[in-house]
């Protein structure tokens, strides 16, 4: 279930990005991760997410254009993991 994966990702993101002031319930899986109105992550955070995908899911993000689509929201990350782990 993708919802289970989203919940797992929320915990990993809070831990890895040290978002100590947030709970998984507060993280909207549809919200943009970057920019105004979103979670306000920065360029260091995106590098941390790249490492997270490689370390925890064995997925390497190669192209920055691809990365923009994958890292749009927590749901798009989960969808990418689900699609590529089946391969």
């Amino acid at each position, binding site marked *: 279930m993708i919802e289970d994966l989203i919940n797992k990702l929320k915990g990993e993101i809070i831990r890895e990005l*040290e*978002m*100590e002031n947030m709970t998984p319930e507060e993280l909207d899986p549809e919200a943009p991760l970057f920019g105004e109105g979103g979670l*306000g992550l920065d360029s*260091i*955070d995106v590098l*941390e997410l790249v*490492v997270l995908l490689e370390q925890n899911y064995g997925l390497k993000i190669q192209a920055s254009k691809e990365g923009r689509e994958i890292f749009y929201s927590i749901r798009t990350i989960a969808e990418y993991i689900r699609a590529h782990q089946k391969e």
Partner: protein
Amino acid sequence: MRTQADPFPSKMELLITRYVKLQDGRVWLNGIVEYVSELGSANELFRSVYRHYRTDYPKFFKMDNLCKLAFLSAEILLRGTDVLQKYPAEQIGIILENASSSLEYDQKHLESVRDRDKYFPSPSVFVYTIPNIMVAEIAIRHQMKGENAVFISEQFDPELIDHYVSELFRNQRVSCCLSGWVECYRDHYQSFLFIIEEKDKIKRCKGVQEYVTLNILNVERLFKGKPI
């Protein structure tokens, strides 16, 4: 050699207009204890100070302890002052010292790259493997764009600060400067941060304590909590 045409004043009186200390679970502002905590670890204490001063800056939680300490010290120091409005951003400097540089995160980074089979260096750890990042965190928060530097010294060196900052003022590179000592390694932490301004540019308010002249002896006495 100085000439009559030299535009730089050879002598200007610089004052310490406000100072803050964080040490041993206490926060002092201008020599008066403002906050006391019994929390043991540096990280727990910094988070409690953050909450006590009702700070709203989520990025704080991602900082290493050195930056948390520098950030909080600047936050408490600048609150209620008008220095950010009074001086152009390019004229506000930040000159700091410490002993351990960024050693705690240097070691953390080293651990993450030591094993070639589990080689996952963390970008958010790596970014703190330089002590100047504490200056950057203060500068970003308060939009300060003036001269800045971090000096590594075994002990707090008031002479270096007095000479370096005085020279910045004399050469008109700054009109205001945050300066002092921000040291943190594991649970040992100590900060002493102060604002330096030119006497001629300060309007003394009624009821405000006497400001302290910037010189080596006074800086050392304030650092040690001794009366001037």
